């Protein structure tokens, strides 16, 4: 058995001390709530009468599969993710490419694009609620200039979710833009100079130098946008309360509605756990995919010599 020296013990102790705050906070605010949520999801915990809580097995999970609103919440959340993630990332990339040029007044644009991010989502949502109004809303005023009749926007089941998506893309793109910008500024100038010598045009440089060089940053941006999109809540709460007719209800909003508004903690916990499982599964898939790509790259390097 190896004897641990006094010096090693001191180093270990110091390491644990550095980890302690993260361990304590992570345990209290992350692990304990998740485990409690897991336990509650198998109960009929009703917040107004917790002492009468009974274990109900998988009843909450079974009920979820016949819950039409939960189905709608999943569909709406997926729609939000599918629309917002690519649009927001693409817009952020375009903005980053634009402000990456060194020209006069560039800072003003950087600030303008980033301003919505530092504005509270509540404020932005309230503003857009006014913009989307049928009577006197700015978007309907603009449409009227082109002879288009007033739209329902947030009051139309077919348009409401897309309106929330549009607002979210506008509000959040500035944040991703800053990350892309940091990535772009890390791309070696020499690569562009070499491309210039080879008479490459702007498109070639973008496709063959810029995008491959910022691929890790792009991956990171996609992941954080994806996670944020799945958690969409504030916009829905402020702008539509899930309406009209649940056309904008999302999974997180439904968890809040069931768990807090209706005090059905057991049922709300079951939705949360299912949602968490989907996240974990998605993460594992992403991890698996990344591993697959790594293996393929190694295979190519070995077989084709890197070409």
């Amino acid at each position, binding site marked *: 058995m190896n004897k641990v020296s006094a010096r090693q013990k001191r180093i270990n102790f110091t390491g644990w001390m550095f980890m302690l705050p993260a361990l304590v906070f992570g345990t209290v605010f992350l*692990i*304990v709530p998740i485990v409690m949520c897991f336990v509650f999801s198998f109960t009929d915990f009703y917040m107004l*009468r*917790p002492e009468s809580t009974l274990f109900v097995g998988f009843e909450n999970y079974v009920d979820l599969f016949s819950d039409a609103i939960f189905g709608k919440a999943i569909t709406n959340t997926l729609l939000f993710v599918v629309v917002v993630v690519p649009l927001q990332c693409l817009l952020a990339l375009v903005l980053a490419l634009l402000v990456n040029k060194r020209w006069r007044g560039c800072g003003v644009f950087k600030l303008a694009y980033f301003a919505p991010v530092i504005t509270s989502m509540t404020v932005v949502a309230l503003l857009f609620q006014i913009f989307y109004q049928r009577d006197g809303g700015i978007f309907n005023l603009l449409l009227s200039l082109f002879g288009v009749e007033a739209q329902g926007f947030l009051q*139309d089941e077919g348009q409401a979710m897309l309106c929330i998506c549009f607002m979210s893309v506008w509000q959040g793109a500035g944040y991703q833009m800053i990350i892309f910008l940091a990535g772009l500024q890390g791309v070696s100038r020499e690569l562009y100079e070499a491309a210039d010598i080879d008479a490459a045009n702007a498109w070639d440089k973008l496709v063959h130098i810029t995008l491959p060089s910022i691929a890790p940053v792009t991956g990171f941006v996609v992941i954080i946008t994806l996670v944020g999109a799945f958690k969409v809540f504030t916009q829905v709460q402020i702008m539509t309360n899930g309406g009209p007719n649940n056309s904008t209800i999302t999974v997180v909003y439904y968890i809040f509605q069931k768990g*807090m508004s209706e005090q059905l903690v057991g049922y709300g916990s079951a939705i949360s756990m299912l949602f968490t499982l989907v996240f974990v599964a998605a993460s594992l898939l992403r991890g698996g995919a990344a591993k697959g790509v790594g293996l393929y790259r190694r295979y190519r390097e070995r077989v084709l010599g890197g070409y």
Partner: protein
Amino acid sequence: MKKFLAVICALALGAGCMLFAACGGGSTAGSGEFLGLEEGEEFVTDEEIALTFTRPTGNDAQEAWWSETIAAFNEKYEGRIRVSETTVTRGNSREYEQRISIWAASDSLPDVLYVDGPFISNYANSGVLIPIDNYIYEGYTDGFLEYVNEQNTYNDRLYALSIVDSTVVLFYNKDVLADENVTVPTELEGAWTWDELKTTAEELTARVGSRKRYGLQIAGDAGEWLSYVFTPLWEEGVISSDGLTTTGYLNGDAGIDAGVYLRSLVDDGAVYASATSSDFSAESPAASMALMGTQNISEFFELGDEMCDWGVTFYPASEDGSISAPCGGWTLGITNDCSEGKRVAASEFIKYLTSAESCESCARATSSPPSRTALYDTMPEYSDPSNEYYEIFSIIKEQIVTCAQLRPKTVGYEVFSTEMSKAIKDILTSSNYGSRDSIRTRLTTAATTIDASIEQIKIY
């Protein structure tokens, strides 16, 4: 690491189990067992009892009345009972009720709670409130409006007492109606029917300068208000008599007729459905009439000269001329977390707040209708035709005394009122509800959601 995770999981499981085990307050006395003070009996105690009291934050007039009244109570009971109050903002998303739920789950409810009347059923069923008939002497409730006592009763036990009440009336702008030669009903028998209200509202809708002035505004959030205002339109009721089923009621034929009527108000341009209360009170009003609650009256008084010259008339009648006016207000109850040693003191506090003097002072200060019947015959604004406010309050009195309709009594009032309001809001504002079939579908969705949620609440 595995050991560490196992320990954390065990701790979390333990915490969850402890939460369940720790919950549960004192015992509840059986019906008929009297533990309070008889009429005229003085409250005595060896040491001062500290009571906690929580209520939602009110408007300026309400806040001033509460501060003054609680200070007066603490002075009267100095050395015996001391009440400390906390206020919580209610907001449009039921933050107050959510706070009560969290307190209930963590055994930290205040001793005395001020709650909205329709929540009594749920709080009584869940044991958040205890019956107070063990502490209130026989005959004390005789002086209260019958329907107010009914609101405060669940399974034949009294759970709360009210200070003042509320109802919905039709406010109108006197100048606009005079200019348009519209005369409002002053007698209950001549109250406008819903169709007459619509016709009048259409007549009053006009373009004034650059903006449109609507005939009628329906202000309010989707949280509860719309269900409160329009429940009587569902002439066959909105929920079964046991308060557990809305399918067949909310989306029954009468319900769909109500929905179609509401939609026609918008389609025919009579209603400004996105209005706020200030749209009625503004100098150049966006609406000539408004269906609003009596709680708005004190705010209108506070506005003084900035407010238009306004009056009130009766809530609309059904086609046969009968009126069922929405009524019911906030009420005081003792919580399960109030220890048994404090419950007599808590009941004394509630009796003080609901005494004839307190009811009168609150009714006057907040311009709300009192919960005690006798006050309608003694308060000048309700009984003396020479009083400057008689024109307003006599109509409120007649409506409250003769045609009050309580909000539905159901353990699922939270989800019922929210879902019904959302459905009404969608019918009024969404572009997807132009046909009878689409209205039926929307009301059916609401009814299904409400019924499913009520089924998830355990009935004790």
